């Protein structure tokens, strides 16, 4: 096991979704996807982003894209033009999640080119 940032084995894009945001996590290999599907749970994401998102977290999977999609239900300070936040649209939430540190098995890292 090696401790790495999620960015080592996945990419991300995020945007607004009503009063919340969505973060799409894209695994960089099949091995990384299998690992993340098991370990990158709603709970892990909710705890990592607890100061950015005040609401629940919901996860969806799309195997054909090696994607996990997370909905953060209350992450935009009201959302739309009511938000006073700089990032009123959650554009940076993907990069925030990629900073998550994880213990990743070495064989997953070997199969996932840096």
């Amino acid at each position, binding site marked *: 096991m090696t401790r790495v940032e999620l960015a080592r084995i996945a990419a991300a894009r995020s945007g607004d*979704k*009503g009063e919340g945001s969505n973060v799409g996590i894209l695994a960089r290999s099949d091995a990384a996807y299998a690992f993340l599907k098991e370990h990158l749970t709603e709970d892990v994401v909710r705890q990592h982003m607890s*100061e950015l998102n005040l609401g629940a977290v919901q996860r969806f999977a799309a195997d054909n*894209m090696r994607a996990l*999609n997370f909905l953060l239900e209350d992450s935009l300070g009201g959302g739309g033009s009511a938000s006073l936040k*700089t990032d009123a649209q959650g554009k940076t939430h993907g990069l925030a999640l990629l900073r998550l540190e994880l213990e990743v098995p070495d064989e997953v890292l070997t199969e996932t080119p840096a």
Partner: protein
Amino acid sequence: MPSKEQVLVANGQGFWGDSILGPIRLLREGPLDYLTLDYLAEVTLSIMQKLRSRDPSKGYATDFVRLVDRVLPELVEKNVKVVANAGGVNPMACVEALKEVVAKHGLRGVKIAVVEGDDILDRIDDLMAAGETFANMDTGEPLARVRDTITSANVYLGAFPIAEALADGAQIVLTGRGTDPGLVLGPLIHEFGWSADDYDRLAAGTIAGHIVECGAQCTGGNYTDWRDVPDLAMVGYPVIEARADGSFAITKHEGTGGMVSRDTVAHQLVYEMGDPSRYLTPDCIADFTSFRMREAGSNRVEIEDVAGSAPTDTYKVSMSYHDGWKAVGQLTISGPDALDKAKLAADVVWKRLAYDGFEYGPDERIVEFLGANVCHEGIALRDAGEPSEIVLRMGVKGPDRAKVDRFGSELVPLVTSGPPGVTGFAGGRPKATEIIGFWPALMRKDRIETKVTVFEA
């Protein structure tokens, strides 16, 4: 009655404010059958209603008319068809402006079609009397609380009226509110003769539209591995090569910057995604977990086997309403001790306002120390150090305009009566601006009639 083996559809505008170079270079740098342009965000129509109420000749995307003025001879010469939601809340005024542009270029016989039926602002009470509740589809709340402050109300129309306009021979199709992917799906329905129950193919066209709807966001823009993207300055906007069977490729013109790969396309596929197996549109429900995606040569991704199913019997309605006022301003504070000084400065502002009787609740105010991890609040950074300077950004909101404006006059005084090193007040006093609330709802489809009208300029 498929007329062509392959149709080329490009999107040159991801939102109102996107670069005009997108569509100009798409026309200039490679082959194209259709150019689509998306100008409408959720609050855009509300702003357009306000402009039209002040001036009956306004209320559409004026950027579009400027674009047509720059590219019209090329459009006509190459016979590229344009589909744009630039009509806003006043498509007829947009037609008039386009007629002037056509005349100015000494051209004639340019057919412009208008799709109408999305604007229900004047029909809300009638529709409620007929049984529509317009309850907020996120919260379930009835419309009553905001009914008197509604400033726009539009239905997201589907792609079939666009196909109808193209069948009538239009070179330019103007719509108001419709789904963004519909701008791409409409031309494919027209070209390939897809029917309303051909759900797999409608879903394929919808997914193609979703991939290109934000312009360069699928060709290397806003991409995690940004160092790998070549020539972002000259990024190519996306081109769809669509086929009658519903399969399609995403590519970009030869020689343009940016890149198209599985990863750049997947980045956009998950953008603003909810449940990927149920992407709802008025035309179909598209299943984003169904298809296969592969790279097929340089800057080309193929997508096939998209599955779709029947749509619901409701349209999504997008309403906006007056939701109070807000003001936001910022100052820059240099080091040493930039963060500590910024914290003091914020405290000074709230205390002076309180002394004068103006207090703002925790949900009505914000303080951000830009440069000290605002975007990733609460997440420990490996690379954090003492910031050399901080941008202090403060804001308030609420129903009382005067109270919001009062805040704006206590920020700039920090330059002379705060800690040392406060600068960057070039914007002057922040002023109250209107908050436009967004109210999503559903209504029965059979209560909406769409209308297509063709004009010749």
